[in-house]
């Protein structure tokens, strides 16, 4: 019995110091789910660790929550993709610096056989036709950047998202795509995440509009300027451009 206790104590000790050690040379970044679901977070963490021996911990959440994590200073950097929320975040003094660093495109994905027949239509007509033909549309419904963009478009086009044709999945980008596939429905997604899931789904991009740019920004949380300087430099420089070129499809650098 006694040696069990000792063993347990040893284990606790090891764990504690291990966590402690990683906390020192690591950085927590709150990112949007598309950042993680597209696989970008994992490859970026590895790429960065290989070069700078510093661990980047990505905490995945919708844009609203990532900003909240920054507000509470739980993380030292936030990656978001909604300009309005980001500007409010800075206005409220939670961040001192905003660096737009990459973009991709929003697309509308649907079943392979396109039951609503909307392939190639402008987004507004496509949405209306989904409703008219009695097909379903899956919305994220989680106040993430993708969902906010979608709501903005619905509002701009004067389309009412009612229960008869819009289902709110309340989950991340990845699972929303899976639900759309299982229900033969259409959904709004970012191209990179869609590409990552493409093989698992019998779905294709039905509407792709170059004006639907999805811009990601890096926000430095107030008070963390010093320890994040290196990472910010990485994100805004040529190294990040190289990383994207090598490791990521469908993400394009801004700087």
């Amino acid at each position, binding site marked *: 019995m006694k040696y069990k206790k000792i063993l347990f104590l040893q284990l606790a000790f090891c764990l504690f110091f291990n966590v402690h050690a990683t906390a020192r040379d690591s950085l927590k970044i709150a990112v949007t789910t598309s950042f993680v679901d597209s696989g970008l977070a994992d490859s970026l963490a590895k790429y960065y660790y290989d070069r700078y021996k510093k661990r980047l911990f990505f905490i995945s*959440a*919708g844009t*609203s*929550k990532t*900003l*909240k*994590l920054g507000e509470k200073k739980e993380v030292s950097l936030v990656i978001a993709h909604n300009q309005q929320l980001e500007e409010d975040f800075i206005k409220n003094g939670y961040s001192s610096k905003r660096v737009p660093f990459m973009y991709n495109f929003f697309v509308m994905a649907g079943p392979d056989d396109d039951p609503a027949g909307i392939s190639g239509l402008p987004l507004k007509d496509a949405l209306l036709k989904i409703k008219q033909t009695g097909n379903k549309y899956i919305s994220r*419904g*989680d*106040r993430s950047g993708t969902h906010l963009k979608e709501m903005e478009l619905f509002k701009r086009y004067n389309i009412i998202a009612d*229960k008869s044709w819009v*289902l*709110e*999945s*309340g*989950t991340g980008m990845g*699972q929303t795509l899976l*639900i759309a*596939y*299982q*229900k033969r429905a259409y959904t709004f997604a970012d191209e990179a995440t869609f590409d990552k899931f493409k093989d698992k789904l019998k779905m294709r991009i039905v509407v792709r509009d170059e004006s639907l740019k999805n811009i990601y920004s890096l926000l430095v949380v107030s008070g963390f300027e010093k320890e994040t300087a290196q990472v910010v430099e990485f994100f805004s420089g040529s190294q990040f451009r190289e990383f994207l070129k090598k490791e990521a499809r469908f993400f394009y650098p801004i700087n």
Partner: protein
Amino acid sequence: MILEGIISSVKLLFSFDSYVYEIIFLSLLISAVSTLLSLVVGLVISFFLYFYNFPLKKIFLSLVNLGMGVPPVIVGLFIVLLFWRGGVFGDFEILYTPYAMIIAQFLIACPMVIGFAYSSFKSFPEDYKIQIYALGAGKKDLISLIIREKRVLFVTTLMAAFGSVISEVGASLMVGGNIKGYTRVLTTSIVLETSMGYFDRAIALSIILLIIAFVINYILTHIQEKVR
């Protein structure tokens, strides 16, 4: 922050927000259906186990015992694989519907019912059984007698099973998909509200879940005390 959350959650509770009531209703409905199903099926199976011997019975019983400890996420994965379009039962197209959630919760609750019921039958004294048979009673009478004798235990089992499925989140999220007004239940919406940073709403829903759990426990204790 917690106090703020509690205050606004109380407000939310009494604002009779239809969104919240929809979630409570769905939660209770889905879990009640799956618990009742597992009670019926579980009882039938355990009667069968009690009265009949068959090869591999020991293996079956240990599988039941294992089933009581299987993490719900594994049940969730199992259901997803089974009902995936192109999977074995994919043609039913019930993934991401309340039916899939009921099946998942049924699989979680059923081993519990079988385990409890079977052991309570086993604890029924063997000489009683012989006496009852000697008096000319059949299996049917024996079953009804056991049920009457052990009714407290059945209620306990029922409540325990209900409590475990209504507070389960992993499988519900995986097979239900958290679709608003359809498969969004208390636990999955707590996950969602937290992930959106709406802590007050998450607290409100948690309080409701706690109240449900408390009521269940209260009824349980009440029944047990009364019998004693």
